[in-house]
């Protein structure tokens, strides 16, 4: 089976390699096509036309993504790279590219647009044009996040995505939509403000916003420490990890189906993607330093999310808390720093996107029939809605990691990674897997065989619902039985990521040791491994005495931060410094 698929794969690759070499800007096309479509949407009239138009846009977008299938599986670096000058004054670039870490998420994002249009076909009845406008903007921003290789470009998409998502919840949401949408916006924005400060700090430190260039740099431990905190806070809120998760159930419950799907499938992944793309490569020593904390929080998220999900009466809330638990597995896999663990984490990101997205679609479908998301109002579907229950069973099993489904592959990989790093850690994560089975089976049991209230009058899945569920079901089984291709895609990039991580986390020491040789006076303050508070104060006071300009000048002279050679303030005021 897998061999056969691989043959088909190489055939497809051969077909599209022509497009690959002919420098067709695939990523720009994926980025701008929904934007242009959203502008055209202004002139489309009639609700049905708007829906059809957006659906067609989604399908064309899928077609535009086909050249991505010629992704070179043996290459660990960035592919389909596009690089143009953007704001030369600040060295900002329009820099796009994908590697094994991002490509699957890009494909998932592109796949979800038409499915979201389909699942909102009858669910959204008011302000249809604005709704589809928001959907298109969301798609564009989400693609942008996963393909941006310039820090500022990334941040633009990271923040811009909030606006359509806010509107999706605030306008088409449930009764508590105002509270939920504001909470969502404030939480995520507040988290990412310090991230912006970290971006600025990286730029001033190196003179570039280019992420691949930044990955090659080395940073002092003190710098990494603060940069990691600033970035991890933004990502942890987005994931969301345990103490920052409270916005998620509120947002999920109130959001319309398509909003919940986008939240679960893509938005949450941005946080874990941020950990993989920024924290591990840019701040390796700090990542290692904070790993015990992150692992602890992850395990707490898994157990806590599982227990809370067990007690929910609202189906959406239950799935929302299960997301907290599942995303805990992702962060757990990332911070054990083993190949299997990170592979599992990345697979879990994709798989959770597929299964949870599908589960939210199913909840939306039943809500259209019962107008309630309470479990007790939706019981006994097994007899009257067999197709619905079949899909539900499949996705619920995938969600709890049943062998043969995609969830099993990723959870098993994460657990292998965790066990190989620390036996006791693995033992702590096991109850989370059992809890997942408990809450999902409880939900499935009640839905299928509970005492029916009014289920007998409802019709089973129609053609449209089949259409948007079937692709996800196929993916669940395909990734469950033949994950080889997906793993081959992500493996080189992860090997490289971890290899760089292993080599670079020690580099900070080497760099600072040379610093000791150069500046023996600072030896006391610059000891890297122990990070005590009094040292921090000492560094600060030392810095306060020395003028910051002098510090920068000195470093610029050393050639460490070449960009700053032009930034320093000239002492003579009559002639202003040349711009770089």
């Amino acid at each position: 089976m897998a061999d056969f698929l691989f043959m088909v794969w190489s055939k497809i690759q051969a077909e599209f390699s022509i497009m690959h070499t002919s420098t067709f800007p695939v990523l720009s096309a994926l980025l701008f096509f929904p934007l242009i479509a959203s502008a055209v949407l202004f002139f489309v009239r009639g609700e049905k036309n708007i829906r059809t138009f957006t659906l067609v846009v989604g399908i064309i977008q899928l077609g535009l993504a086909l050249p991505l299938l010629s992704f070179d599986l043996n290459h660990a670096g960035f592919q389909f790279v596009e690089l143009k000058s953007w704001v030369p004054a600040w060295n900002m670039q329009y820099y796009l590219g994908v590697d094994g870490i991002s490509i699957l998420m890009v494909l998932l994002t592109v796949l979800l647009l038409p499915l979201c249009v389909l699942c909102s076909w009858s669910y959204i009845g008011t302000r249809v044009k604005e709704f589809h406008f928001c959907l298109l903007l969301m798609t564009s921003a989400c693609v942008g996040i996963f393909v941006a290789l310039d820090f500022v470009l990334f941040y633009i998409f990271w923040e811009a995505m909030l606006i359509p998502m806010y509107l999706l919840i605030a306008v088409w949401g449930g009764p508590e939509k105002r509270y939920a949408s504001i909470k969502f916006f404030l939480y995520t924005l507040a988290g990412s403000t310090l991230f912006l400060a970290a971006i600025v700090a990286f730029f001033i430190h190196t003179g570039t916003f280019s992420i691949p260039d930044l990955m090659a740099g080395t940073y002092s431990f003190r710098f990494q420490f603060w940069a990691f905190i600033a970035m991890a806070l933004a990502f942890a809120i987005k994931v969301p990890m345990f103490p920052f998760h409270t916005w998620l159930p509120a947002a999920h419950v109130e959001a319309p189906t398509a909003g919940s799907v986008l939240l679960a499938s893509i938005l949450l992944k941005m946080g874990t993607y941020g950990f993989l793309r920024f924290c591990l490569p840019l701040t390796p020593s700090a990542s290692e330093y904070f790993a015990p904390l992150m692992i602890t929080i992850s395990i707490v998220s898994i157990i806590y999310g599982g227990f809370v999900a067990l007690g929910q009466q609202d189906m959406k809330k239950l799935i929302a808390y299960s997301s907290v638990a599942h995303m805990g597995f992702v962060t757990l896999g990332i911070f054990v720093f083993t190949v299997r663990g990170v592979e599992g984490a990345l697979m879990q990101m994709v798989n959770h996107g597929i299964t949870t997205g599908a589960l939210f679609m199913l909840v939306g479908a039943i809500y259209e029939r019962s107008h309630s998301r309470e479990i007790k109002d939706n019981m006994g579907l097994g007899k009257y809605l067999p197709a619905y229950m079949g899909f539900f069973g499949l996705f619920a099993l995938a969600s709890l990691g049943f062998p043969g489904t995609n969830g099993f592959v990723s959870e098993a990989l994460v657990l292998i990674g965790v066990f190989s790093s620390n036996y006791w850690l693995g033992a702590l994560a096991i109850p989370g897997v059992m809890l997942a089975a408990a809450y999902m089976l409880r939900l499935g049991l009640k839905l299928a065989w509970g005492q029916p209230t009014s289920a007998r009058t409802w019709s089973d899945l129609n053609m449209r619902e089949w259409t948007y569920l079937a692709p996800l079901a196929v993916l669940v089984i395909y990734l469950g039985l033949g994950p080889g291709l997906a793993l081959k895609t992500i493996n080189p990039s992860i090997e490289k990521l971890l290899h760089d991580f292993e080599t670079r986390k020690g580099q900070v020491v080497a760099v600072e040791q040379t610093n000791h040789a150069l500046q023996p006076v600072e030896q006391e303050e610059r000891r890297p491994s122990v990070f005590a508070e009094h040292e921090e104060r000492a560094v600060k006071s030392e810095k306060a005495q020395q003028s910051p300009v002098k510090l920068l000048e000195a470093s610029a002279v050393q050639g460490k931060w070449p960009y700053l050679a032009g930034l320093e303030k000239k002492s003579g005021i009559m002639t202003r410094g040349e711009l770089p």
Partner: protein
Amino acid sequence: MIFRPDLFVPELFQIGIIATLFILAVGKPSWSRNLIWLPWLAVVGVVVTAFSLGSNGTLFYGAYSVDALSQFFKLAISIGFAIAVYNAVDPSHVEEEKRADYFLFLAISAFGLMLLSSGVELITIYLALEISSYSLYALIPLRNRDKQQSAEAGIKYIIFGAVVTAVAMYGLSYIMAAYHTTYIFELAHVSWSLDHYPMAVLGLTLFLCALFYKLALFPFHFWCPDVYQGASNETAAFVATLPKLGAVVVLIRFATLLEPGMHVTTILAVLAAVSMTFGNLVALVQKDLKRLLAYSSVAHAGYVLLGIVAGTPEGLAAASFYSLVYLLMNLTCFWVICRMSTDGRNLVLNDLNGLYSRSPILAFILAVCAFALVGLPPTAGFMGKLFLLNSAWAQGYEWLVVVAVLNTAIAIYYYLNMVRHAYTMEPKEEPIQISGPTMVWGGIFAASLLLLGTVPGPVFKFAQTAGQFFMP
């Protein structure tokens, strides 16, 4: 001294506008009935100023410098003037017989600000500041309704303005006594350390107070909300935006005096931090839209100072760029408010309810403005802020950058509240009728905010040459 009129073209054109309006004002009342051509004249002014963007030279014995910085700000001022005039040309807010006078004062104030952007000598700066302020003193009470409130606002503005001007004059006398010169480029070479020359530093600080008053920076912001609230919406749009540009350009000239680590610079940095935090916190509880924008402008004054305390060419360029962005986003925001308030009353947050169905285009423009004011990408507000943060961090003001980014988290609440009212609340009132050209111009304003946010390069290049201005 050779007087070169070619350096003076934008100002001459503005004098032409003033003269025309003066004739209309003293002539028959019927002459000033239809002023619909005035915005177009102002647009011609923008074109004229744009053509003189490359001029370079000095006038009036070196007291008046025409350079990249002054021309950049003159262009911004003429754009702002054109938008403000277009915004105010709707006749409802001021009595018919006073309309020519109204625009006369607007034009004189803009003229004063143009002079201000070229002033490189303290007395010239002082005079230009007064020209731009005096006409505003007359403008603020000119309102069709709420006469009492607008008179109160006018009196507050005059009294506080007069006190601050006196203080600035006092400071000026100290500077002159200390260094016997009023040319900024000569003052740039002397010591501004508190230990060496406390009198000069005190004088400079007092002189800066006048600028802070114009800028509505923290301890000098108290006039701002009352004046905005009392003045008509159209006047508030002008007062909230253009005079700030004048203050910024003079501060940029003064930045040649400042070095990181100096006492004055440290004071500026602290004032910036306090101003943004205070402005944002107080804005959280405002219901009246103009008061809300007033406190938001207090916060924005703090942001602009980030570039000025950095003092590098990049920092000054970032401050110039941000003030242009500030002008655009605030004028656009006021523009929406003026279109909504057809009878000239003050709007509260609840008046925004259901704007999405009353006028979708106004709602969209308002949303763009609100997100630009927060500093969210992909709007110009984000880019401007990013440049400021970069330049401040490069000069070692890490703490200030952290304060600034944390302020975004505070600010988002009240700006988002505007969007929330416009998009998620249901309308109670009738749809708003707006004409085709109004819609087009509004769309252009919003598009320019988005464009400056996505491709800021070309405009920032101009700001960069402005930031590298060369003192004579």
